């Protein structure tokens, strides 16, 4: 049966989650992410999965973490204010090494901000939103098609690395309606978690140190007992104060991302060969930059190149460093729908080699191709 029809961006996230095998959703509705929950509430029961609206955002991510530990793929979604509430449990998911997909459909902030407006002001919240050193994977879709496929990829990364993965969508993409032809779910490449299979009499070690960076994952209600806590734990999941164990566990947890960054990265490159201005932009601003580059080329100026990280965290540090070092560009340009977050990472990698110009828009409306063309003409 053809799956070609008009979809809403948030709906695409839900459908992708279901196609990727997500079988539990817990949430609390919030604009501009609510359609994700609405679709899940209707469709999840039809595939035999669990759906629950909890009393708040904290409880909903708690339920999603619990579900993941019964062996199912699990998801929660919200927007900035709700992600702030979820922050505590995001840390819990990191330290318990729980595969989980967390969607943030970004809106204006801080606090309740501008609920129906678009924004990219949670880029750094995704990286540092919960306390303590913790691994972070965050994907930033820039088109409707990517709302679908990056959600599938988020589940794959979560399963493969046993860690929460955040999708940073935005209001404009969440509420965008467009026609797409979705693939047959059977054709998707899906990753399933490495399951632990302790033999009778053998104790399951959720944080085994001798199984590579990602220990196999257990599941409750499958015949053996184990313990999980937010405290630093030993291999068996019980609290420990052994300094060597804590150090080793913390480092292994971080190494899941640090040692596998290249496998997590995905970038979009547009007109980088002819260009002499290197734009670094993510999400819908990245798509606007590509349109701006096309508009400029149509006007006889093909000097705007666009490097668009789709995996924001971990950041494509080597790739950007190589572009800066290539000598092809006279400057860097960082447009973003916030007051300067992505630019911090670009500055760090640039190490003062190229001049950096910015465009920072936080009035509730998206960065447009015209905004970019105008700013490029102004500053370069």
């Amino acid at each position, binding site marked *: 049966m053809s799956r070609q029809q*008009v979809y809403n961006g948030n709906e695409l996230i839900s459908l992708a989650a279901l196609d990727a095998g997500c079988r539990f959703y817990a949430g609390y509705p919030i*604009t501009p992410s609510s359609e994700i929950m609405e679709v899940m509430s209707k469709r999840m029961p039809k595939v035999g999965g669990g759906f629950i609206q909890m009393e708040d955002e904290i409880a909903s991510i708690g339920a999603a973490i619990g579900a993941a530990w019964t062996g199912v793929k699990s998801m929660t979604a919200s927007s900035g204010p709700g992600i702030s509430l979820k922050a505590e449990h995001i840390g819990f998911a990191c330290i318990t090494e729980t595969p989980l997909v967390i969607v943030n459909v970004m809106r204006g902030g801080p606090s309740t901000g*501008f*609920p*129906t407006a678009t924004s990219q002001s949670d880029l750094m919240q995704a990286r540092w939103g919960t306390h303590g050193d913790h691994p972070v994977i965050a994907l930033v879709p820039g*088109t*409707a098609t990517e709302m679908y496929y990056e959600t599938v990829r988020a589940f794959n990364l979560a399963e493969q690395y046993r860690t929460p993965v955040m999708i940073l969508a935005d209001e*404009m993409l969440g*509420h*965008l*309606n*467009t*026609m797409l032809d979705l693939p047959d779910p059977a054709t998707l490449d899906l990753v399933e978690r490495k399951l632990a299979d302790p033999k009778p009499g053998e104790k399951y070690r959720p944080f085994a140190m001798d199984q590579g960076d990602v220990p196999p994952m257990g599941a409750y209600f499958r015949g053996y007992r184990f313990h999980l806590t937010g405290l630093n734990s030993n291999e068996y999941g019980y609290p420990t104060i052994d300094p060597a164990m804590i150090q080793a566990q913390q480092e292994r947890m971080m190494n899941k991302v640090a040692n596998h960054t290249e496998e997590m990265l995905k970038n979009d490159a547009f007109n980088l060969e002819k260009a002499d201005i290197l734009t670094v932009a993510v999400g*819908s601003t990245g*798509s*606007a930059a*590509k*349109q701006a580059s*096309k508009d400029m080329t149509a006007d006889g100026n093909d000097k705007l190149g666009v490097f668009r990280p789709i995996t924001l965290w971990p950041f494509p540090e080597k790739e950007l460093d190589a572009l800066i070092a290539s000598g092809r560009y006279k400057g860097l340009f960082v447009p973003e729908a916030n007051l300067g977050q992505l630019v911090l990472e670009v500055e760090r990698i640039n190490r003062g080699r190229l001049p950096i110009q910015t465009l920072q828009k936080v009035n509730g*409306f*998206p960065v*447009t*191709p*015209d905004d970019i063309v105008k700013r490029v003409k102004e500053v370069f």
Partner: protein
Amino acid sequence: MSFHYEARFAAIGGQGIITAGAFLATAATLEGKYATQSPTYTSQVRGGPTKVDVIISDEEILFPKGNKLDLFLAMAQKPYDRYYSELKENSLVIVEENLVQNVHDDGHRIIRVPIVELAEKEIGLAVTISVIATGLVVALTEIVTPDTMQRAILSRVPKGTEALNMKAFQLGMDVGTKLK
């Protein structure tokens, strides 16, 4: 030059204009074109200025907000004032005659239609204004055929309201055809 068309409908939240944008985008995709529908609205359930941008193109659309509008339709003064910008030269401007009285006279083609009055008198239901508006748009722009627009509307309206919505669409078509 490739085909590229930008429409913006502006209204008061609750008038149904975001849905009208979805009808247009759906109809365009039924004709094999790329189309996006991107709404902008406020936190109020109804009453705030609202707009919807529809881009129709024969190429993939990278950015779904309009900046060179071929068509601007406004159902009330406040959203007209807020979102009247980014028009191309010689754009078509359609306004609700009784609710948008202060109209810029800056070279665009202006069509005034008492859409709310038509909905109340001819259909008997003010909620049909957005469907009447889509009829006007199809008649005046021919951007999609009446047939695909009807199919788009029928694919998205609640069951049991089909006949009423088709009547409203036809009313918009008839009024629009006379104004061509």
